[in-house]
């Protein structure tokens, strides 16, 4: 199966590990990730102002491209997923933003949110299936792993429709499928504070420590995430309480496709 893939800025630079392991694992699981042509940075944050149009156009272009090339758009970085998914809902809703974005973009036919935005985790769950992953695992990870969801995948849940915003299970299910033991801890959906990192060093530090110490208290030996920014923040500001890795790195390890 071939899916249009939107990598995003960070995955091409600082988060290459996330991108590379994800591609290898997908290939091992029978999914081909085809990077879309001429993608532009999504902006890394969804602008909520109701008059923000230009800032959403790169997402609209990627979505429109995917619509013409299989109808699905695979995302990996949490921030890209959040921006693209929310922009897609704007386009679906057909309000002012949708009308103006279409007027500006001049597509052959107006884009109305037809593309299905699929996060890599959703792809693992719904396209591949956790049962199939379990079968493909060569090195079961016999470890206690804490899932760190952060904000971007889950909220606002009405739009993201990713998982239960207060009691998500998808990464825990993923951990089980690669042979690990998921550790549920209360701060797995609490913000790590990274967004204000350039203006405020203290807050991200406090929040990251809180997240990791909560995971540690409940017995986690390591924490996984899908977000390059969360990873950076938890690693740089989390006081080294627990190791933090991308979920795809663990998947690669379990599938035995590491370099």
């Amino acid at each position: 199966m071939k899916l249009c893939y939107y990598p995003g800025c960070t995955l091409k630079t600082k988060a290459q590990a996330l991108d590379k392991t994800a591609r290898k694992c997908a290939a091992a699981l029978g999914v081909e990730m085809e990077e879309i042509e001429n993608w532009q940075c999504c902006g890394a944050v969804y602008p909520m102002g109701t008059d923000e149009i230009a800032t959403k156009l790169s997402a609209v272009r990627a979505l429109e491209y995917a619509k013409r090339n299989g109808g699905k758009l695979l995302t990996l970085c949490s921030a890209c997923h959040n921006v693209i998914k929310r922009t897609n809902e704007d386009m679906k809703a057909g309000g002012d933003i949708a009308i103006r974005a279409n007027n500006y973009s001049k597509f052959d036919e107006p884009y109305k949110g037809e593309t299905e935005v699929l996060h890599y985790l959703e792809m693992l769950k719904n396209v591949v299936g956790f049962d199939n992953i379990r079968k493909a695992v060569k090195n079961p990870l016999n470890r206690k792993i804490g899932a760190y969801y952060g904000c971007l995948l889950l909220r606002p849940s009405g739009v993201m429709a990713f998982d239960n915003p207060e009691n998500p299970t998808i990464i825990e299910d993923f951990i089980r499928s690669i042979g690990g033991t998921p550790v549920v801890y209360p701060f797995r959906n609490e913000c790590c504070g990274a967004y204000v990192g350039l203006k405020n060093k203290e807050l991200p530090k406090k929040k990251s420590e809180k997240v990791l110490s909560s995971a540690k208290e409940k017995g986690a030996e390591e924490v996984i995430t899908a977000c390059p920014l969360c990873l950076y923040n938890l690693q740089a500001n989390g006081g080294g309480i627990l190791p933090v890795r991308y979920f795809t790195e663990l998947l690669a390890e379990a599938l035995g496709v590491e370099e």
Partner: protein
Amino acid sequence: MQRIGVFICWCGSNIAATVDVKKVAETIKAEPGVVFSDNYQYMCSENGQQLIKNAIKEHNLTGIVVGACSPRMHEATFRKAAEAAGLNPYMVEIANIREHCSWIHKDMDEATEKAIVLVRTAIAKVKLNAPLTAGESPVEKRALVIGGGIAGIQAALDIADAGFQVDIVEKNATIGGRMAQLDKTFPTLDCSACILTPKMVDCAQHENIDILSYSEVEEVKGFVGNFNVKIRRKARFVDETKCTGCKICMEKCPSKKGLNEFNMNLDTRPAIHIPFAQAIPNVAVIDSTQCIKFKTGKCGICQKFCEAGAIDYEQKDTFIERKYGAIVVATGFKPIALDNFNEFGYADNKDVITSLELERLMNAAGPTNGVLLRPSDGEHPKVVTFIQCVGSRDTSGCGKPYCSKICCMYTAKHAMMIREKYPDTEVHVFYIDIRTPGKNYDEFYRRAVEQYDVDYIKGMVGKVYNENGKLMVQGSNLIDNEQVTIASDLVVLATAIEPEPSVRKIATLLTASIDTNNFLTESHAKLRPVESPTAGVYLAGVCQGPKDIPETVSQASACAAKVIGLLAKSKLKTNPCVATPDEAMCNGCSQCANVCAYGAITYVEKEFRLGGGKTEVRRVASVNPAVCQGCGACTVTCPSGAMDLRGFSSKQIMSEVEAICKK
């Protein structure tokens, strides 16, 4: 020649502020057939009615139109007035110029113009009205009460005391309902069981009351005074007439791990059980999903030990059919599921509980024998935090948009009871608003604050999480503009209540209307608060809206008064607006009978004269006016146009359409 009178009501300023009532009355004078037109401040008042009566007599009116409030409000009033003046009451039409005009429009010219059209439309209709006479139907002197909680019990006792037969249908194995689960009641703190169980016993012993426990209403046919109800008596696998309630079966049953619903699943019970010690009837029931005999075919221990020989594994559901004159719906409530409120950690933490669970934990007959112990480790909690409005007043789609009304009071009660019993326990309450309207209610809540040192924090909780064995309750303290985190041992959620889900089915069976929150709708919010819009159906308790025990009991007694008033009548007037066939046009095709939901249409062979001395026998439709409810389905389905509806005839509606469209 028609002589129509028109009466325009000001309704004080309700109509007159936006509709130029004088102009309407003047303009209408020019309408053909109108011989009298006037306006008055309050047409429904004694003087207003007198004005109508006088005009009918003086001007020899053949029909009248009252431009006033909704016919749902005062149609009956004006019909009575007309009748008193010698005019057939069905020669009255109402133009709704209040709810459908003055109240929704702001522009005087626009509203006045619309009012004139509405009055003209009513005139067009009334000109085609025919005098109608209401028929009579007998009244079955027996009432059905659906639901055996405190509402149903009170209604049943009151009706039975007046000398009428009452059946209580209760879906559970015992009557008692939610009140039986409560520990103490506000604002007097008397023991719930102590005031409820004697009433349950009264029901059981009353010669006029028949308790049909473990039963459900399956089918309802008929109409006010003459309901035919089919009731399913679910198989309890224990012969009710033989079981003595000795409980030996409970002792011997090897399958003891069933969740105890009565104790909010906080402990377990055997597969064969009596829900609680004071159950009425005091008869066991087998949970067939849990029972080993039902699952494997082997066991049968209870049968072996039952000296009364009451156990019957072969028992099947049975059905009984009874006739009733009136029906009281008292199906009650349940706390909402907390799936959408995971921020409070209910699913993950055993020590986050609902208020109803706390009732059981505080109750001497509960799982902890009334000692307050944490469900997780059986320790005494030292810090208890209450969160109010969990799922209430929530318009985000996660909860219920309404205020559940009882939570402020029961939370104050819980807080006080804990402080009373365990003075070393710290109690905090997060609240948004405290709502205590009621006699001695606010005083009660203040006592919690002033005498019992309960810490009330104005603000909502954002998150409850577990840290190092403590439940961290993080929320707002809006008065101090702070975010506070309280390390607690037990967290109690004042969970919103919702109508018991089975009410939907009951509402459909009774064709009683239900609102968007699944509460049954009363006929009029102020003037007919215990009557459903469906005649002969009455509403008691939370099925109609959130309310506490005193209010529920008042409403149940009010229902009983209404039922007694109905059953005391020897005959009921029936609605004369029923379907009627034009036999000359009817060809006996049976289409109308096919669509009639009431089976009101039959066919008769009739002889018709053809002229020239010849006759012919034809099959024609015949409507039983006592059974027809006047919906009109048959009139539209009739291919020959023979069927028409009195009071809403095709000609009448056509002329209304014409009057509205006329430019």
